[in-house]
C-alpha cells in the first residue's frame, strides 16, 4: 500500500483519540489489526495490537494533562513492522519500530500541545463569529479544527513512514545480521514494561477503592 494512503488511514483513526467519537477504535488493540488487514497480514496486526496495548494504558489524560501519544505511536510502529514484514529479521524490525514508536509518542504529545494552543486562535475566531451573529459558521470552525489535527498527524506520520521507507530496510539488514537471534527478547521486554505501567494503574485504582472502605467504616 502507498504510504500516503496509509498515513491518511492512520490520521483518520487518530481522530478517535479526542476529536470525534472516542470509542476505542484508535487503541492499538483495534487499530493495529485494521492496519494489518489493510496491509495484508491481519495475524501480525493482532499480534502488534496485543504487544503495544499495555504500554500506553497507564497514562490517564485527566484534565489538561498531555500524555504520550501512544495510539499514534502504535499505529506508526505497526505500520513500519507491517511494511517490512517480509524481511528475514522480524525481531530487529520490531525493535527499531518500537524505538521509533517511543519517539513518535513524544512528538505526538508535542503536536497535541501545539494543536491545543492553535485552538486558542479558533476560540477567538468563534467569538468573533458569535459577535457578528454568524452562528452557522461555528460548527464549520469546529470541523476546520478537526481537519487541522488530521493534517498535523498526517504530516507527522507521512514523514516518519517516508524516511523509514528510504533507510529502514538497510538498517534492519545490518543489525539483523548481527543480533537477530538475541533480539528474541524484544517482545517480552515490551510486554514487561507495559505490565509495570498497568500494575501501577491497577494498584492506584484498588487503593482508592480501599480508601473508600476505610472512610465508610470510620
Amino acid at each position, binding site marked *: 500500500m502507498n504510504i500516503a494512503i496509509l498515513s491518511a488511514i492512520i490520521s483518520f483513526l487518530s481522530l478517535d483519540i479526542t476529536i470525534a467519537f472516542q470509542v476505542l477504535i484508535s487503541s492499538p488493540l483495534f487499530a493495529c489489526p485494521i492496519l494489518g488487514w489493510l496491509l495484508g497480514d491481519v495475524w501480525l496486526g493482532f499480534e502488534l495490537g496485543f504487544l503495544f496495548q499495555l504500554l500506553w494504558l497507564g497514562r490517564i489524560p485527566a484534565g489538561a494533562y498531555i500524555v504520550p501519544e501512544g495510539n499514534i505511536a502504535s499505529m506508526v510502529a505497526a505500520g513500519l513492522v507491517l511494511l517490512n514484514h517480509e524481511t528475514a529479521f522480524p525481531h530487529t524490525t520490531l525493535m527499531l519500530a518500537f524505538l521509533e514508536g517511543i519517539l513518535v509518542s513524544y512528538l505526538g504529545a508535542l503536536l497535541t500541545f501545539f494543536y*491545543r494552543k492553535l485552538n486558542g486562535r*479558533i476560540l477567538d475566531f468563534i467569538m468573533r463569529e458569535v459577535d457578528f451573529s454568524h452562528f452557522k459558521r461555528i460548527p464549520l470552525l469546529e470541523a476546520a479544527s478537526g481537519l487541522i489535527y488530521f493534517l498535523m498527524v498526517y504530516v507527522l506520520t507521512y514523514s516518519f513512514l517516508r524516511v523509514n521507507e528510504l533507510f529502514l530496510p538497510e538498517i534492519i539488514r545490518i543489525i539483523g545480521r548481527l543480533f537477530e537471534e538475541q533480539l528474541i527478547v524484544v517482545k517480552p*521486554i515490551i510486554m514487561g514494561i507495559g505490565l509495570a505501567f498497568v500494575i501501577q494503574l491497577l494498584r492506584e485504582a484498588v487503593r482508592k477503592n480501599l480508601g473508600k472502605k476505610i472512610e465508610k467504616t470510620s
Partner: protein
Amino acid sequence: MKKPPESARTKTITNWDLFKVFVASFFMQAVWNFRSLISIGFSVCLIPVLGKLCSSPEAKKEFLHRHLRFFNAHPYFASFALGVSIRMEEMRANGEPHMPETLDRLKDLLISPLGAVGDRLFWATIKPASLILGMLGILVAPSVLTKVLVLIFTFLLYNIPHFYFRYRGLLEGYHHPMDIYKYVGQQRFNKLRKAYLYIFFFSIIGVIVAYSHHIFHLHPGLIAVFLISALYSLFFNRIVKSFYWISLATFVFFLAVGILFF
C-alpha cells in the same frame, strides 16, 4: 402581526432535540484549548437547541457567550452538564429570573465532580479493564474469526457504559437540573466500578499466565526477561516519573541482557 416577547412563550425541548445534542456530544473535545478547555465543543453541542431557546440574534449571542466561557469535564460525563444547561436555558427562555447566574454557578460546581468521576470510572477502570480482557481474548483465540469476535465483545464491553452514560446523563441533567449532584456522586458508580475492577484484576492475571505460557515454548528464559523487566520498570518508576525514560532505560538495559545471554 407583532411577535410575543420571548419570555411570554413556552419553549419545549423534545426528545428528538436531546438526541441531536447526544449525537453532537461525540465531538465534545474537538476544539480543546488551554483557555476555555472543552467549552467550544460544549457550545456546539447546544446548537441543535439554540433556535428553540432563543429567537433573536441578540439572545443567541448572549447564550453562546455564556457557554463559551471556561468549562471542563470528562467528555462522556459532560452530558450531565449539557442536560442541566438545556433545561435551565429553557427555564430562562420561559421567563424564570436569575437563571443565567444560577446556571453559571452550577456549571462551575459541576466541573470538579464530572471530571473526577468520569476519569476514575472510564479512564482508570473501564478502559483498561475492557482492553486487557480484550488482550487476553486475542492471545487465546485460535483463529482470525474468533479474534474479531473478541474485538467486537471488547468494543461492546467499553462502549455500552460509554453510550449509556452519555445519553442517560443528558436526560438526567435535563429532568433534574437543581438536584443533579445526587446523580453524579462517586457512590452511584461504585458497583459498576467494582465489577470492572474485578475484570481488570483477573484479566491482568490471565494475561501474565497466558503470555508466560506462550513464550515458554519459544525459550524458557523469556519468562524471566518478561517478569524481571516488569519489576525493573516498577522499581525505575519509583525514581523517575517520565514515561520515556522508564521505557527507554528498561528496553535498552534488557536488550543488552538479551544480547549477552541469549
